[in-house]
Every structure is written in structure tokens, then in C-alpha cells.
């Protein structure tokens, strides 16, 4: 595996928060239980990756794609995840697209030649952004 074992672990604080969201309020989670779930999550990632990779190889592809991961979930008997995953993926893709266009807009401001073209595109962007804002209360953070 990797040289540094802690790299294969997921952050405790995040794991704990996710666990709490799944349990009734006030339930105590023993340190052992939390640690065990964290390890289980890492194993899950490995198992899912290996399974998804099999689908990619079947398709003679070297890059794992979204479809491979979804197929892996079915294969691993986690069909219940497929619909919520597909929904999240749509939101994620829209966000990524929005960020990309926000970056494009920044570049355009610096480039005067493109100004006419960008005015047309901005109208479309505004429409999209309005939809996103309605559905998504989060602030966007540029990476």
C-alpha cells in the first residue's frame, strides 16, 4: 500500500460528523466504534475502486469514470446508493460548470477583444446561476 499509513485514513472530525447525522440525537459513539467505522470507510473506498476498475477494464478504458463507480455500487449490493448518487452528481456537475464559467468571465474582463462575445454568454450564465442559487444555499468557493 502507500508508504504513510495515515494517508489512507479519513479525517476523524468529518467521519464523526457523518456518523452523528445518521443516528438519533444524543447517541454516544465510542472512540473504538468511530475508529472502526473510519477503517471500514477506507476499506470501502478500496473495494469500490477495485470493483469500478474492473468495469473500466471491461470497457477497455484506463480512466475510471462515473458509470464505473455506479456499476460498482450495484455489484457490491449498494443499489440503494445509486439514485442519491446520480442526483448529487448532477448538482456537482452544474457547480463545476458554473465555476468554470465564472473563471472564464474573470479572464474575459482582462481581454477586451472578447467583450461582445461574452455579453451573449453572460445572459445564459445568469440564467443558470439563478437556478443554482435557488437550489443551493451554499457559497461557492473558488479552488
Amino acid at each position: 500500500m502507500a508508504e504513510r499509513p495515515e494517508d489512507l485514513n479519513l479525517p476523524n472530525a468529518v467521519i464523526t460528523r457523518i456518523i452523528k447525522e445518521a443516528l438519533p440525537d444524543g447517541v454516544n459513539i465510542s472512540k473504538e466504534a468511530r475508529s472502526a467505522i473510519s477503517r471500514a470507510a477506507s476499506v470501502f473506498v478500496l473495494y469500490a475502486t477495485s470493483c469500478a476498475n474492473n468495469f473500466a477494464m471491461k470497457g477497455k478504458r484506463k480512466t475510471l469514470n462515473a458509470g464505473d463507480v455506479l456499476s460498482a455500487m450495484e455489484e457490491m449490493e449498494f443499489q440503494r446508493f445509486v439514485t442519491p448518487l446520480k442526483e448529487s452528481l448532477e448538482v456537482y456537475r452544474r457547480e463545476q460548470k458554473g465555476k468554470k464559467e465564472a473563471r472564464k468571465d474573470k479572464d474575459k474582463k482582462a481581454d477586451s477583444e472578447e467583450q461582445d462575445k461574452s455579453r451573449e454568454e453572460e445572459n445564459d450564465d445568469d440564467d443558470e446561476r439563478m437556478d443554482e442559487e435557488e437550489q443551493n444555499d451554499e457559497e461557492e468557493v473558488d479552488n
Partner: protein
Amino acid sequence: MAARLSGGENRLVSLPLSRIRVIMKSSPEVSSINQDALFLTAKATELFVQYLAAYSYKHGKGKEKNALTYSDLSHTAEECETFQFLADILPKKILASKYLKMLEKEKQDGNVREDDEEDEEEADEHEAVEDVGS
């Protein structure tokens, strides 16, 4: 990476994509991972954590004391087929006294076997102890 900095649980995914990626890449046959696949794996892992926790709590004895315990989790790994891939990393725990009794029993079973198997026997017992101990 895409770990969002806004507060609250409204973020799309909480687990850091960079860390998920490190784990995925540690898998030997994997060459590259598309961004969507990375996101889905992270999100799936969150769903998995919630499912494992909720299932274990519901079916376990910990809730008698309003807690989720290691035993609940190991029980789930053993009893539920979907989670059986976790059985090796969530072994049931036994008391030291029980373990010693197991060793005693193994030793006694060994004495019942034929003489010319003695050398093999000892090797087996040594192996068995190592396995149980690890």
C-alpha cells in the same frame, strides 16, 4: 480540494476529495480517475458510513445504553451479507480467559492424533497461535 468551507451540513460532500484520491490510487491496477468518479466515490463513502452506523445501531445492543459500540459494528459485519467484506477488519473480540481456554483445547486435540504426525502438529499449533494473535 473540493472540501467546501461554508459552514453547516449543506455542503455537497464533506470528505476531502484529495484524501479519497490517495486511497484510490493506492490500488495497484488503477491508472487514472475522472473527476466525476472521484466525487461519486467520496459521496458513496459518506452514504456508506451513514448506512453502516445506522444499521449497526438499529440491530445492535449498544442502543440499550444509548450508544453505538464496536461490538454493534462487528456484529453487523458478521451477520449482514452486504457488510461481510468488513469481517476481517472488524473481528469479534474475545476475553483473554476464553482465548487461553481455546489454546488449551487445541493442545488437547493435538494429543489425540497419531504419533508420526507429531512434528506437523507442533508446527500447526505454532501457526494457529500466530494467526489468532495477529
